[in-house]
Every structure is written in C-alpha cells, then in structure tokens.
C-alpha cells in the first residue's frame, strides 16, 4: 500500500514537471517549491543524525570530550548573522573554515591539478612497438596542450609564429575538445530522460520488464 501510494505520487509529480513542456502551470510550480522545502528538511535530519549527535553530543555527554565544545561555539557564531549589531561575529567561523580550508587545499591542488598533469604531458612521443595512432596521438597531446595553453595566454597579442600560429592551432584543439564534450552532453541529457521513462513504464505502469 505504502509502495503503491509512493509510486503513484512519484508518477503524478513526474508528469506534473513534464507538463511544464507544454505550459507552466500550478502543479509544476508546486513541485518546484516542494523540492526546496523537502531537501532542506532532509538536510536538517541528516545533519543531526550523522553529524551533531554522533560527533558532538555523544562524545561530549558520554565520553566527556569537552574540547569539542570549542568548534560547537564557533559554529554557533554563524547564528549571529541574523542580528545586524553582532553579525560581524559570524566572520570568525567563516574565517577559520575559509583560511584553513584554503591552506589545506593549496599543496594538494598544486600536486594533483598542476604538477601531476604537467608530468603526464611530458611523455615519449615514440617508443618501439607503439601503434601509429598512438604516436600521432602523443604528438597531438603534447603539441595540442601547448598550443591550447598559448591560446589562453592573453597577455600578449596573438601574432607571429609562436603566439599567432600556436593560438590558431590551440583553438582548433579546443574546438575538438568541446565537440567531444558536446557529443557526450547530448548522451548525458538523453540518459536522464531514459531513466524517468523507465520509471513511468516499468515501476508505475508495469508495461515493460
């Protein structure tokens, strides 16, 4: 009974959202607003059961880890944002989270997003036994990366052999990259629709296996 009610409710709301394709209507707007409220309500429950209770309340009350009151007090300072006269106090937890988070991420971002990627671009263009498509591919990869980087360097005018030709090759490489992304994007969007149609035909109507 519960499952049946659930499936019918889900189907009605699915069709309500799809009705927007014909024309905006009150049922669609109701669904739009419900999603905002439910997601935040869900957020509250999960935050309490997953974070506050096991990681703050229980350790302080049961295990006497009173040091955890410090981050709790810092977190409570967020609430001062609602009171204009003392709203500046909310900057303290933000500063702590922001500053330490930036420092924490800096060397790791450097390693993963820059150094490792540069390292992977310095590769042998040819090795014995390498198929032709891989050799051509490695040349495209190395020179294409360099050319695309030249294209994004806007501090110098794109003229001459290095900046001019380099940036022209770079934009071609970028367009090929965007073309590949676009092809996958089409696939991705259709997949989302497939999932919903599968739900309607299988779970709701039961007309397909």
């Amino acid at each position, binding site marked *: 009974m519960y499952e049946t009610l659930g499936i019918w409710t889900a189907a009605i709301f699915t069709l309500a959202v799809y009705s927007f394709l014909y024309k905006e209507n009150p049922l669609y707007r109701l669904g739009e607003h419900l999603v905002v409220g439910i997601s935040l309500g869900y957020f509250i429950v999960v935050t309490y059961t997953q974070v506050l209770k096991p990681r703050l309340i229980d350790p302080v009350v049961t295990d006497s880890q009173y040091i955890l009151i410090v981050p709790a007090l810092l977190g409570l300072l967020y609430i001062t944002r609602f009171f204009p006269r003392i709203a500046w106090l909310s900057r303290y937890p933000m500063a702590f989270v922001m500053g330490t988070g930036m420092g924490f991420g800096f060397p790791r971002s450097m390693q993963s997003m820059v150094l490792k990627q540069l390292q992977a671009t310095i590769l042998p263009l040819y090795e014995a036994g390498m198929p032709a498509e891989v050799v051509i591919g490695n040349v495209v990869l190395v020179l294409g990366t360099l050319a695309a980087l030249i294209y994004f360097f806007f501090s110098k005018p794109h003229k001459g052999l290095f900046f001019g030709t380099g940036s022209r090759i770079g934009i071609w490489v970028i367009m090929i990259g965007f073309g590949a992304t676009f092809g996958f994007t089409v696939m*991705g969007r259709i997949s989302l629709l497939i999932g919903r149609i599968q739900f309607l035909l299988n779970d709701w109507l039961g007309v397909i296996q």
Partner: protein
Amino acid sequence: MKENIWSRMLNLDRRWIFLLIGVVCTVPFFVPFGLPVLPTKNVISIFDYVETLGPENAIFVSFDFDPGTDPENMPMAVAITRHAFARNIPVFFTANAPLAQGMLEAGFTYVTNPNIAGYFHIVSWQEWAPYREQGITRRDRLQAAWEADGNVLPENASGWVFEGRDFAKLGYLPAFALVIMGMTSSIEAQYPEDMNGNPLAQMPMLQEHKNLRDVDLAATFSGSAACMWWVLYAGDTISLPIAFGVTAVSATDYTMYIQSGQLVGQMGGLRGAAEYEVLLQEAGYFEHPDRAFIGMDVQNAAHLLILFFIILGNIAYFAGGFHKKGALLKGRR
C-alpha cells in the same frame, strides 16, 4: 520576409520537437533493437581491477551524486556494488551530501531488494551477533556457520551480505573533502558509528582496514566535481587507487586523469554503466544486464534523432539563405 518551407520549418513550435523526442525515447522500450554494447578500455580497467580483489581486501563506494543525476550515476554504483558483493569484497559506503545519502539508501535498497532477481540478502549486525561473540568473523567461516545453522539462501538471491563484515553504511558528513583526508589516518575517527548506529570499532571489516591506506579502491560516483576530492585528498596523497563514475557531461573532463595515471578507470554516463553490466554478465556473475543496458537501445534512437535534427536544421538554415539574411523570423514560441 517571404515565408518558405525552410523558414516554416525553423519556426516550428518547439513543443512538436519535444513530442517527437518523447515518442522516440519511449518506443524502443516496446520494440528493443537488442544491439550489443562493447565495453571500452576505461571501464574494463575498473572491472579487471575489482576482479583482482577478494574478501581480504576492501573498497569504498561513495555515492557523491544527488537525485538530479540518479538515472546516470545510480546504475554504475549499483553495478560495482553488486560486483563487490559477488566477490565478497567488503564495501564501505559513503556520501558527500545529505541528498547523496538518500541515494546511497536507494541504491543499497535496490541491490538488496528481494523482488529483484540476483539480489543480495542482508544479515544485519544484530542477527549475526552470536557468531561474533564466538569469534567467528572470517568471511568463509561465518557463512559456513550461518548456513550450518539452517539459514538457507532464498532462490532468487545471489548471496549473503553480513553487516559489518561485507558492508558498512557510513553515510554523509559535511566538509567531505576533509573527511576523506581524515580517513587516511583513521576511518573510525571520522565515523564512530555507521548509519544504523552500530559501532564501527567492533566491525571486523574496520578492524582489518583501519584507514584508507588499508583500502584497495575508492569508487566515487558523482554528477559534479566532488569526485576530484578523492583524487586530491586520497589518491595522490596516499596512492589510493581511484575509479570514477561520472555523468556523460563531465566524462570528457576527467579522461586526462586516466592518462596521467591518477585514475584506475572511468565509467562515463549510462553507456559506462551498461558496459559494466555487460562485463558482469559475460563474467557469469549475473544472468542478464540491468537497467542501463536496456536504456542503450533508447540512446541509439535518440542519438539518431538528434543527428537528424542537427543536419536538417543546418540544411534549412543554409538552404533558406538565413546565413546571408541575418536573424530568423520572430514569433517562434
């Protein structure tokens, strides 16, 4: 401007296009083509890696997506979970956001749903407590003792999964990037309890794999850049092998991390999930592929339609001379 067939075509009410795509995405469910899906190397590499793992290893499966990308990410997460359970590889389940925890619950429910053929039958933490008290915690001994006591695996089930031995649902914590970082030192410090309130310290799988350095793979399924947290805070810091399951939209953005060796492999979009399901079927784990494979027939039809639209739209644009005249007629809805 004089109306001709090309301008009428380009000014077509877009709701007709919506109707056409809706029909094209529905009909193949009733008239399947059944075309084969050939796995590609990026997906095969994940599958082959998981094939090398067993009960003495452990993996993380992180549901880092919200309901918006559920149709793409869920089949991938389900596929790799079923693979791990079939090989008795202990799985830690995590989520990077509250809604993602809901997705974790939904995915886990699907894998353990008795109404779905090939499901895995859950034995809860409390149910096998007597065996723990006797010190029976090794996977093979536990299953033997469990079955010797008269517990029979249901006919349409693929196997047992013991909570705390085969899986632990850890769930969501905020600032998840830092949680990953913290788990490189201790999983229990980040998650003293699982989602059901069971103490992690008593779980055999945690006792054998105390931190991410003892784990053999982290598979993250995401519709955003959150998957990169695993690479930044675990993959590159402690050399934890990472596998991605991402939406098709982002799939091309992360292939460079495969080339650089920072990823084991990647499942991209519904196709990636379909390939993994085919690999599971070919390896004999399951009789049939799952929902992602069924969806590929619709992908075929939809792609052909999109291509038709692109070609027809460009023909109409150039044949109608609109590339010379500038803007098209106004008044389209």
